[in-house]
């Protein structure tokens, strides 16, 4: 009989109320600070009719440079919407092919740049290779700066003389 009571007590659900205090501290990464370091115009200069392929390469001085400052250990996604062509008017266009790279080792150094490889989108960590020295005032994870390089090719065919233009739209966000 004692054994049966003991087994019943063991199998009975243990009732009771338990409470636990809970506190979250959800920290948002610091806002991305995107700055166009260069003049904001990818300028191919003066070109001749039927000149053919004209390239601004990564290492050319005309390349546009953009800095992206944010929390060093966060990934950012950069989405570029290039124009299909620079336009004088509807019937006079210069086809454009985007060239883009990023450098995320903490330096504005084209030698460290990694190509988007033909894509218009790239996701990368703001800083590879460890945390930068120091941190923002008031604590929090340190920030770092990555660099975006924009360049590309145009083709000049039998088009009218004039000034051709287009817009590269860029969106940078934390992944």
């Amino acid at each position, binding site marked *: 009989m004692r054994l049966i009571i003991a087994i019943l007590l063991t199998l009975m659900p243990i009732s009771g109320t338990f409470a*636990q205090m*809970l506190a*979250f*501290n*959800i*920290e*948002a*990464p610091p*806002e*991305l*600070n*995107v700055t*166009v370091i260069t003049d*904001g*115009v*990818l*300028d*191919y*200069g*003066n*070109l*001749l*009719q039927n*000149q053919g392929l*004209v390239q601004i390469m990564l290492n050319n001085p005309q390349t*546009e440079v*953009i800095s992206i400052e*944010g929390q060093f250990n*966060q990934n950012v996604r950069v989405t570029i919407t*290039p*124009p299909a062509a*620079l336009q*004088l008017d509807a019937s006079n266009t*210069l086809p*454009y092919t985007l060239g883009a790279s990023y450098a995320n080792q903490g330096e504005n150094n084209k030698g460290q740049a990694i190509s988007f490889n033909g894509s218009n989108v790239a996701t990368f960590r703001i800083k590879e290779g460890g945390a930068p020295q120091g941190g923002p005032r008031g604590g929090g994870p340190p920030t770092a700066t990555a660099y975006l390089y*924009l360049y*590309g090719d*145009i083709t*000049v065919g039998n*088009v*009218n*003389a*004039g*000034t*051709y*233009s*287009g*817009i*590269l*739209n*860029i*969106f*940078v*966000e*934390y*992944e």
Partner: protein
Amino acid sequence: MKLKSLIIFTAAIFSIGGFAVSTGYAQGGSSSGDRFSIGVSARVVNTIEMVTLRDMQFGPVQPGQQQISIDPLLDSESGKMIAIGIPESRIRVSFVRERVLTSSDGSETLTFTYEIAGNDRDDQSSAELLQSDNRNFGLNSRGEYYFWIGGQVNIQDAKPGKYNGDFTIEVEYI
């Protein structure tokens, strides 16, 4: 806007998670983002274009003045032109140094002696004086070469009136 997004995200964590204990910090999910634009431009030219950026500016001639002089290296009154063509290409520049100006009624003439300074940079002070004979120059990486036009005219014996003339400069690829 970004702060508002963060608050909504925090509330969702509490609601869905209930009393389940979550370890670590939730990061990311912020809608922080930045949208911006870069212009892309190119100028297509026919062969070599000469564009007048500024005509020579002559101030009023004072009675008794013997000469009008504009220094192409120093004076802001100098005319300014730009040659536009294939970047880095070599060009030959020639011009007629002396041109005859004619009064508006056609009865009088003056001889204007041009002086030209050139530079592949848009910098008058570092330009060099050009000779009237052919010289070899290079367009810069943007396909440009700049000219500043000045000169002198003797007006000692000139009669009052308005005098007009032109200036011819020839630029060609080598």
